[in-house]
């Protein structure tokens, strides 16, 4: 029949087009740029959040290339969209490692990274992510995490709460694996401070938290703790808490002062909040330099997410400079990483489970400015 031959013809044409689209396989050239794979969500609900962080990576690449690159070669980021899904994550990981021959990968988001872990080990490609889920990096020999474990932040908060004599603390956390982990740490931290504990878990990606914030109002706490992954949703939680008349001081488990989307959603309610975590330290020359140059380029202060992303690129560049592009050699170098200078100022090293340990501090927002405080300081 005519229609079947038409189908056959269109299928053939399609096959040819597909074949033409396939790139020619090549081993990564010895000259030309060294490529770093970036498997990030470029579409979907978290694309905006990811795009913010990419600014940090791009600045690191520009800085390294301006100084002559790595082993005399420029570095280049190869972006692949994961769509924030496991399927997209696996496809993107395979594509950058097999087609672009990248020696290293940067990734993000627990569900995507979990799906990519077996590939990292199988292909012997180091992968650094900023996920805070406990022990995720422990599951694959080639997986690294450059982030602050929230348990450490909560520990610091606990001392602070204790010296403030807090009696009742209500904690908010996302209802995902991160939240589940933080729940235990938060209970311990609040218990250690001798205060009564209650919690509620909110769903990410929703604008309405007016039902859940009423839970905090019912508990009538002295302080509110928010365990955050740095998304704008926490900002809406803060706003809606204040707008049902909850006035207790708010403590948050990361320094989100300069995270743009979060600040936009919190608005003026940021005043008086206490934050704990790593941040760009402008009293350190390196942090000051990073901050000044970022501000000159983007017109605002950099945040800790951009700082850690900068560090990740710098770690890879240092590793390749030292040991070349072999995945196992890079892994071994990173495992032994010590006293590495952070773009945010200060230094960090690789801890157990290939999770970095970096400096954290307590901060208070006062008069619209961020100031460092000590545990117990009013």
């Amino acid at each position, binding site marked *: 029949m005519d229609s079947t031959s038409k189908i056959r013809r269109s299928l053939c044409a399609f096959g040819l087009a597909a074949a033409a689209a396939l790139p020619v396989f090549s081993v990564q050239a010895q000259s030309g740029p060294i490529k770093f794979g970036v498997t990030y969500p470029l579409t979907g609900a978290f694309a905006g959040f990811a795009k913010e962080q990419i600014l940090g990576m791009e600045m690191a690449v520009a800085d390294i290339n301006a100084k002559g690159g790595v082993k005399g070669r420029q570095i280049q980021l190869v972006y692949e969209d994961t769509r924030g899904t496991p399927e997209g994550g696996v496809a993107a990981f395979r594509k950058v490692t097999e*087609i672009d021959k990248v020696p290293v990968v940067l990734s993000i988001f627990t569900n995507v990274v979990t799906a990519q872990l077996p590939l990292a080990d199988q292909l012997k490609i180091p992968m650094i992510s900023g996920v805070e889920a406990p022990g995720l990096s422990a599951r694959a020999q080639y997986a690294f995490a450059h982030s602050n474990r929230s348990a450490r932040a909560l520990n610091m908060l606990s001392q602070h709460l204790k010296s403030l004599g807090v009696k009742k603390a209500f904690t908010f956390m996302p209802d995902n694996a991160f939240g589940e982990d933080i729940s235990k740490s938060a209970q311990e931290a609040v218990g250690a401070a001798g205060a009564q504990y209650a919690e509620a878990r909110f769903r990410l990606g929703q604008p309405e938290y007016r039902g859940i914030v009423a839970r905090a109002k019912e508990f009538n706490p002295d302080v509110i703790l928010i365990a955050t992954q740095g998304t704008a949703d926490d900002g809406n939680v803060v706003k809606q808490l204040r707008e049902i008349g909850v006035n207790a001081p708010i403590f948050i488990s990361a320094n989100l002062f300069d995270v743009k989307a979060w600040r936009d959603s919190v608005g003026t309610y940021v005043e008086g909040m206490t934050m704990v975590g790593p941040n760009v330290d402008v009293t350190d020359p390196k942090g000051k330099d990073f901050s000044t140059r970022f501000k000159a380029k983007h017109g605002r202060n950099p945040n800790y997410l951009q700082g850690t992303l900068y560090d990740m690129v710098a770690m890879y560049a240092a590793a390749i400079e030292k040991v070349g592009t072999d995945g196992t050699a890079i892994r071994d170098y990173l495992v032994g990483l010590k006293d590495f200078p952070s773009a945010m100022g200060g230094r960090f090293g690789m801890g157990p489970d290939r999770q970095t340990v970096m400096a954290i501090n307590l901060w208070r927002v006062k008069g619209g400015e961020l100031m460092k405080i000590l545990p117990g300081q009013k």
Partner: protein
Amino acid sequence: MDYYFFVMTVICIWIMVSLATNMVIGYAGLFSMGHVTYMAVGAYTSAVLNILYGVNYMVTIPIAILATAVFAFLTYLPLMRLAAFPFGLATLGMNVVIVDLIHIAAPRVPGSEGLFGMKTPEFMASGPWRFVFVAVLTVLCVALVRHVLNSPFGRTLRAIRDKPEAAEAAGKDPRWYRTVIWTLSGAVAGLAGALYATTLFYIDPTVFVVAFSFNVLVYIGVGGLASILGSVLGPLLLITFSESLRFAGLPSDISGPVQQIVYGALLIVLMMFRRRGLVGNYEFKD
């Protein structure tokens, strides 16, 4: 090369889901907007049995198929009473509810939001062989579904779709035929789910959200309703297209949206100019 094998394996799996959806939308006129629900049930059955109870993966496949078929049968019983449009919305609601229920209640590996660490037979460890295995099952599925739809059963099904009163007058009970095809469709989607769980290494609720059910609608809308070839062509062309965007060298912040814009535009163009899709044999009436 594993990248290509992975993409081809994924295409095969979506062909199965498209086929399952087309069986009910195209051949039975039952407008399902949430067929990924059944894929989720198959995937979770297989993964839970394998990871948490140590059941051999090959044994979990038939169990997943059976479990999903039973689940599809049970969910169809209440759905059966609804007219076309509320039916579609109820299946969509079912998809939303199942994703949330999995999120709330399904077992997970501690510290993650889903399940991973499936133990598969030795031969499935390599990308090419996993692809061969999935491809063979896809071909078997296509052959089986084709056989069913070309049989007297399939002809009656289409007669019921087009003229339910006439079929009923001839002594055929539409409810029975629709229930059978729905259950069978669930079984195919369940198989696809069980295969998807090993292809991805990791499943969690985000893998089965409504957006993927909509994707399947786009696949069969483009390929063509009531057509086996259409169910194959849709996912094949569209997934190849979206993966080839990776090679188009577009700037990172447009390459993602471009795919969605093309999908949306395809839907509009199809509804405007060719409602039966590329090779379809049926046009969904209201």
